[in-house]
């Protein structure tokens, strides 16, 4: 039995969809952030798989940059969530509704 690139792509698609579902159904800000990290990881699997099956390293370099961006995003996102928590004592995104609808 040979592992083809589709094995990795399907795994990545499943993880990406789980992450999307997490963002859509959860309301705790931090869990939403974790779900998005999961989505980025799914993309990374795609990139590394493409990169290796084409015998390149470009995709791995892109993964390197995605990790830098993910770290920056996580830091900034957590800081914003902490600010909201100080105002409302909650990180529940459903309660973020003082803006008029």
């Amino acid at each position, binding site marked *: 039995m040979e592992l083809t690139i589709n094995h990795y792509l399907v795994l990545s698609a499943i993880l*990406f969809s789980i*992450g*999307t579902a997490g*963002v859509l159904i959860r309301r705790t*800000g931090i869990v*939403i*952030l974790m779900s*998005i990290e999961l*989505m*980025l990881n*799914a*993309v990374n699997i*795609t*990139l590394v*798989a*493409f990169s290796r099956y*084409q015998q*390149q390293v*470009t*995709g791995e*370099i*892109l993964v390197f*940059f*995605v990790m*830098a*961006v993910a770290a*920056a*995003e996580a830091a*900034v*996102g957590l800081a*914003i*969530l902490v*600010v*909201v928590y100080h*105002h*409302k004592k909650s990180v529940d*995104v459903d309660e*973020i*509704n*003082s*803006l*008029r609808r």
Partner: protein
Amino acid sequence: MNFSSYYAQLKYLAPELSLVVFSIVALCVHMFSKKEANKIVKFAAITGLIASLIILFDTPLSNNPLYSGSIIIDGFSFFFKIIFLLSGIMTIMLCYRFYNFEGSEIGEIYYLILFAIVGMMFTVSSVDLITFYVSFETFAIISYLLAGAFKKDLRSAEAGVKYFILGILSSAIMLLGMAFVYGLTGETNFYKISSALPQADLTLALVSMAFFFVGLFFKIALVPFHMWTPDVYEGTPTPIVVLFSTAPKAATFAVLARLIMTVFSGYQFQWSIIFTFIAVVTMFWGNLAALIQNNVKRMMAFSSIAHAGYIMIGFAAWGTLSITAIMFYLIVYLFMNTAAFALIILVQKKMGFGENVDDLKGLARRYPMVAGCIIVVLLSLTGMPPTAGFIGKYYIFTAAVEKGFYLLAVAGALNSVISLFYYFRIGKAMFMETGTEELSDKNISFVKSVIVACSIFILYAGIFPSKLTEFISSIAIK
């Protein structure tokens, strides 16, 4: 590949580098000065932007990609860099009144604005997926920060969270699209992808294109990816909204133009359908939702959504004519939108009050000249002659008709009529008899001069559009 030319190629990056130097200097000054720190930083930031604008005009252009095919410093990117720098200058000028009035000024936002502009300048120049991704995320992350940085107001923090979550969600989806574009071709350079992508599987190429566009459409706030716009615009400090509603949008439109010229050039039939649909939905949604708003900031948020819809007509009817039209419309939109938000800053009272249409009452009596200029701006936003807004819409609709998109042009014209109603409400309120409360005159001169300068440009470009059009078509993307 020749890597030894990297030093010599630095001269093409002079405007970006000077901005970085200025922001680092501002950062150091801010760290070590105690009194008046914010004033110094603000001054340094505005000087840096003006210096960068001057250097930009002296920077050589090159139609060959630099840095091993990472970026290209062509006329197209040159034009957009002018838009970003002008937007930055006007934003910081408007900050003077806003923060003197509201207090709790944070000096850091000025060098964040500078860094964001550097990010956008690299974004419009990038012709490589990796450079594009990093620079795009740089200004995206600064946007989330600037939205949430006005900490005394809960609405700002909420705007930050909303913008952040939806923003990184859409950028993750865009990244998936990028991953597939890379995977299908094995290239990251836009030009190389463009020649390799047609050999790839059609379904996967289209899926990756759709994913790629989601991230861009989100940044431009096109329906159905616009949900964040009214809330974020309302919660964010008004001068920052001036930046948000102009510069990142222009940057993303520029990237979209570059992508459909290179990466997805083989799929014109497919993206033309997507853009047509999005343009119609966006125009109608933006204009109809703006009709029922009482808060001027939310009204202008929907109005900016609608204007993005007009610009999408140009993208649907892509061609030489529409490129010029889009670029013309974007620079006019910069001035129209800035003036409209400057008006909000003029009448704003503390903590988000003074944002209702009723708060504009009596403005004409108090500041007759400003009111006159705003009438010009409102005419331009609606698209009436003799303003630049009319010329911009005329070019876009002509481009649509030329390519046979008659219904799209009709829909655009119909939307201009709808928009008349809510812009008219602003105008009517200004000329109403009495103002209820006294406004403070503190630091008003900068706001006034921004509004006057914008309206002068709008009138000038509306009456003598040929010079601007010639300039734009000489540097437009080929």
